[in-house]
């Protein structure tokens, strides 16, 4: 009896809750850290990116329209799904990043725990970042953090899963929809994790993952006028140019700092807007 031939998986984009190939028909080869061929991965085009932004814009209203409790439940469900497929994530992180199995296990564990952490923020952030303002007049005045809208993310190139989670879960938990360009050379863990959102009740379009050539895609993310915020942390030498392009539509730009004592709320604060309501008080 011959040995069973394994079924190779094609990794596709995650856009609007579905898994399309690139409309361009392109794909590119992804290799493990040891240089061995892993898979062909969809190579997204500018058109795919624009489609993802359209999906994100539509999904954002629905996501933000859900209760904070519900958003927390959905993100926690995502963590549950990841936990149940932990072995697969570990294997992908191990081959993509070329780390020991034990380190891959620790990394995946931290990534999942980070989703849990952000899941818990959904119904805290309003109280922590908002508040009532004692204005000198007959008004009830309050400030609420509301999402910026659609956030573009250039995911970190090295940290294929942990870095990805940190950069997408933060804007998502405060009600944004995300269009993320995954690590160019290590895209697979991000795609696997994003696949799980489809079984986590996350509305399609809240998290859109594009794989492809970073330098080709991200300038279009920076110049897209319907993208409200941009996390350039994973763009390396391109970061300055992206920040400059983002000025065209006054985007909020986030760039992770190198210092270890980075305030973890800075990422949340960058992608929320403080909306202040003055309401008259009278009989």
């Amino acid at each position, binding site marked *: 009896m011959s040995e069973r031939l394994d079924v190779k998986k094609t990794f596709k984009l995650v856009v609007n809750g579905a898994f399309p190939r690139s409309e361009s028909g392109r794909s590119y080869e992804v290799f493990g850290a040891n240089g061995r061929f892993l898979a062909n991965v969809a190579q997204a085009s500018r058109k795919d990116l624009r489609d993802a932004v359209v999906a994100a814009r539509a999904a954002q209203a629905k996501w933000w329209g859900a209760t904070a409790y519900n958003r927390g439940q959905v993100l926690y469900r995502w963590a549950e799904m990841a936990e149940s497929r932990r072995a697969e994530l570990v294997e992908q992180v191990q081959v993509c990043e070329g780390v020991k199995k034990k380190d891959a296990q620790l990394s995946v564990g931290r990534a999942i725990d980070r989703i849990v952490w952000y899941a818990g923020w959904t119904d805290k952030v309003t109280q922590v970042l908002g508040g009532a303002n004692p204005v000198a007049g007959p*008004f009830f005045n309050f400030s609420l953090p509301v999402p910026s809208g659609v956030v573009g993310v250039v995911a970190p190139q090295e940290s294929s899963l942990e870095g990805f989670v940190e950069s997408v879960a933060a804007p998502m938990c405060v009600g944004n929809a995300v269009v993320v360009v995954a690590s160019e050379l290590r895209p697979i863990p991000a795609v696997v994790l994003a696949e799980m959102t489809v079984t986590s009740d996350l509305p399609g379009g809240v998290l859109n993952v594009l794989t492809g050539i970073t330098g080709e895609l991200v300038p279009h993310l920076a110049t897209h006028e319907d993208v409200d915020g941009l996390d350039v942390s994973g763009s390396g030498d391109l970061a300055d140019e992206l920040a400059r392009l983002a000025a065209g539509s006054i985007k909020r730009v986030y760039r992770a700092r190198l210092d270890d004592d980075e305030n973890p709320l800075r990422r949340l604060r960058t992608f929320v807007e403080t909306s202040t309501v003055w309401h008259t008080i009278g009989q």
Partner: protein
Amino acid sequence: MTEHALTSELGALAYDAAPESAQIAHLQPSYGLFLDGAFTSPAQHEQFASLNPATEESLATVALASPSDVDRAVASARRAYTKVWSKTTGAQRAKYLYRIARLIQERSRELAVVETLDNGKPIRESRDVDIPLAAAHFFYYAGWADKLEHAGFGVNPRPVGVAGQIIPWNFPLLMAAWKLAPALAAGNTCVLKPAETTPLSALILAEILQQAGLPDGVVNIVTGDGTTGAALVDHPGVDKIAFTGSTEVGRLIQERVAGTPKRLTLELGGKGANIVFEDAPIDEVIEGIIDGIFFNQGHVCCAGSRLLVQESVADEVLRRLLRRVDQLRVGDPMDKNTDVGAINSAAQLERIRELTAFGEEEGATRYTSACELPEKGYWFAPTVFADVAQSHRIARDEVFGPVLSVLTFRTPEEAVAKANNSKYGLACGVWSEKGSRTLWVAQRLRAGVIWANTYNKFDPTSPFGGVRESGFGREGGRHGLEAYLNV
């Protein structure tokens, strides 16, 4: 008697002139820069005139700060930061800010006169709004200076360093207060660049800083034009840029700051929607619309310049609005009865004329107040455009003048969609007696400030700032500290 005749009769109601005295201003003929705690000699600098826009006469000349002057200012701010201010305790900083607040109150009449002469805004507004709010802002942030660790930004929030601050001409002293008070409370030193056409009240403020004994170099004031601002934005010794002004200039600044370690906050333009539902109390609505667009001649980034009225009451609202517009008293800003003063500059007047010409060309129905305008000075009669479509330039572009565009809607969903159909997102108004609907609308508006059954209210405790192309960052409240802390 026809409606029109009644209007004319009311419009003709006469008041005796009640002018405030221009002598109270005590202006010097020319000013230097405020560097390192002292005024430089005016003779050291190229001078330019600051005009009274109501008379086109020169009030004083001020220095045009060159890039090397900006360099001196930044060096002075850096020295003061390193040697003095960063070693001054929060409690000490607070006491300086309290002193400044008190001195503004004490010199409020003088400041109000200077502001009105230099800007053209009615003395009623500079006296009752600009100056008291500027003092209140210093009072508010004074109290934060020794409580920063309780502000929600971590246990040891640090200042950013040297802040370059560029302010507009519409609320000259108030914008200086909005910039300086939180920056100083958080422990930064500042280089402030007042607007080209309204530099004078900031120079009076410099005298106040001296009177308050603020250490030399903690605040430096460089008057000038766009080249001065550009030199400040580009200066490598500046750690933070805070800008209030047009979206056009804000975009350029964001581009220039991109790729540098500088922090940036931008408070830019707007095209505020003022939404009136059919159940709203009409008398209050009319006053609210008037305040929303004619306050400060409409030179307000958060002005309610797009009126969205529910169709069922649109005719009545427009009829009563036009009658009220005719009664606005337009003229001498120094007269205590004046409602609408002078347009700040010839350039701004030209821009308003250009955009309103588009309004007519594109087919909107123009109504212009029949008020008489003075012969000298820059004036624009209060103007309302009805039958405006969303695609018209007067519905999309910021006019920054006393010009209102009126559109209608049928359902709350339509009102929200139309209000959000703008690249801007600074402020909106909602008028309704139904609280649940007001909050439903407020939740859906993409704007940094939402006024429900009121408009154009400001308070130091209340965060102000925009979303989308109206900028980012907040001024006022606990949130306003973030712009000046390294967090």
